[in-house]
């Protein structure tokens, strides 16, 4: 019966009044209910308006899920969209055209955006270079610095919890003959400063430590790391994609030499980012994009004015709203945590609670399988592991670096809270998560055994 319900819409078309009618194609049989005559496959008709349901990947969801995946990307703020639209409508000039009004106004808009981004991080506008995103910035920073100084410097230091693009760039450098030290992190996610200081060699070209981790939300001690790097004379690069506009950043106070910034993590458009390159002392990089020498030769290619204007607007808004958003995110995170902990036990927070950006909460639920939990949470848009690694079934390398056990790493869920998250959404997320966790634990024999007091590690599973 369920099968015919799925086949029917493909073969026949629903009409007002509730009947079924065959589409006007060449059929041998006349229109008959339950006709199984094969037909050219038609897309299923859109669901009727009262249902308002969405069918995606074979799953029927009754409405758009509530969005709690702010670390993957954020919605564009309406104020940002308002700033961008004119540049898609009538101000469409190329900012590098020097000979007419379209070029001049476009260039003025780009420079204004540059100044806004610089103001948010305490930099000079001449130190900001626009790119296509934080991944490109990380590539330029890691590969560009290493290659520029390749005659005298052959060593790069980074951490095990960095974003995949930094780790991949470092692996690429290893193939070119560089030595790379991947610093381990403590179980709370923070890097050990003594280990960092020991690892720095006279021929170290770069230290790269991300500001706020995208998976666990941990904030690294940037000021201390910057101080150590300054003493040793090594450039300090930080991937601040998740930190920009959320925690205060000051490139001078933190001794930052290079910084990667991304627009779509702070309610800006996707496809644009910025690289901060210190002028005093000047950090040199080898450009990764050859071309017309735009952006002072650091990154060739037409600067996308609408995206850059959106980025600038997003930074301006973030500067004004940082305190308000931070307070709200902290309150909502506490509400989420308290709500979940009040109803289920054996919930572990991955990463330090003190050094944390409150909008990122990564929880592991013991005795529950992660994929089944996610499948049951189809009305909440959350993620397990980062978006970059969720294609594979491997547990997240970040959690592994924290020393989280395999079974707990598999069952981790990351809740992202942002500017537009409401209390009701948090309450609904708690309700749905608790319901799903309880359901899965009821079915879990491991949970039963654990409740009975059996130590799971002592069990000898029979070998066949």
């Amino acid at each position, binding site marked *: 019966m369920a099968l015919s319900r799925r086949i029917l819409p493909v073969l026949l078309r629903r009409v007002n009044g509730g009947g079924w009618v065959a589409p006007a194609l060449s059929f041998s049989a006349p229109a008959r209910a339950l006709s199984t005559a094969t037909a050219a496959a038609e897309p299923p008709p859109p669901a009727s308006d009262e249902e308002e349901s969405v069918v995606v990947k074979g799953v029927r969801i009754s409405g*758009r899920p509530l969005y709690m995946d702010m670390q993957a990307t954020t919605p564009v703020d309406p104020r940002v969209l308002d700033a961008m639209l004119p540049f898609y409508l009538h101000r469409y000039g190329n900012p590098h055209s020097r000979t007419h009004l379209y070029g001049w106004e476009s260039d003025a808009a780009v420079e204004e955006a540059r100044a806004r981004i610089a103001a948010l991080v305490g930099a000079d506008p001449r130190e900001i270079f626009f790119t296509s995103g934080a991944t490109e910035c990380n590539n330029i920073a890691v590969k560009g610095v290493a290659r520029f100084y390749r005659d005298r410097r052959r060593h790069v230091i980074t951490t095990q919890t960095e974003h995949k693009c930094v780790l991949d760039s470092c692996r690429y450098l290893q193939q070119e003959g560089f030595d790379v030290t991947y610093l381990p992190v403590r179980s709370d996610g923070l890097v050990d400063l003594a280990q960092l200081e020991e690892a720095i060699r006279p021929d170290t070209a770069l230290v790269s430590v991300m500001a706020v981790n995208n998976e666990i939300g941990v904030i690294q001690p940037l000021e201390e790391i910057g101080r150590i790097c300054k003493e040793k004379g090594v450039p300090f690069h930080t991937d601040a994609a998740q930190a920009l506009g959320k925690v205060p950043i000051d490139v001078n106070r933190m001794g930052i030499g290079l910084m990667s910034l991304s627009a779509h993590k702070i309610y800006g458009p996707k496809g644009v980012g910025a690289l901060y390159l210190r002028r005093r002392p000047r950090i040199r990089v080898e450009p990764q994009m050859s071309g017309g020498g735009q952006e002072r030769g650091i990154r060739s290619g037409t600067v996308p004015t609408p995206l850059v204007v959106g980025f600038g607007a997003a930074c301006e808004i973030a500067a004004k709203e940082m305190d308000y958003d931070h307070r709200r995110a902290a309150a909502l995170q506490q509400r989420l945590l308290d709500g979940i902990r009040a109803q289920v036990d054996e919930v572990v927070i991955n990463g330090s609670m003190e050094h944390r950006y409150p909008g990122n909460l990564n929880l592991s639920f013991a005795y529950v399988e992660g994929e089944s939990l996610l499948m049951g949470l189809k009305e909440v848009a959350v993620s397990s592991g980062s978006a970059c690694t969720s294609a594979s079934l491997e547990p997240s390398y970040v959690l592994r670096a924290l020393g989280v056990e395999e079974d707990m790493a598999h069952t981790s869920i990351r809740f992202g809270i942002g500017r537009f998250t*409401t209390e009701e*959404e948090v309450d609904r997320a708690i309700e749905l998560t608790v319901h799903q966790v309880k359901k899965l634990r009821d079915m879990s024999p491991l949970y039963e055994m654990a409740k009975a007091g059996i130590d799971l590690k002592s069990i000898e599973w029979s070998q066949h």
Partner: protein
Amino acid sequence: MAAAAAAAPARSEVLSLFRSFLRTARQFSDYNIREYTRRRAADAFRENRALADEPAAAAAFAEGKKQLEVAKRQAVVYSLYAPKSKSIMEMKLQ
């Protein structure tokens, strides 16, 4: 635009601006933006109620009027592209 420093807005003007914000917020088709506009406007007006000196109050009022224009435009844009299915939060409890 008047170059002279504007006087502090009258109480009725401020209330009228606030009501306009709430009205505009209701017109947003997106649940999250609607709630945010309402909440942020309420919090901003509450915070600025304490502003004692005139230039600051006048500046806040001017800023508020500008933001209202942005909100009105965006309410139109969002409604032009509103998706057919609404957010889960707006559906009847199941």
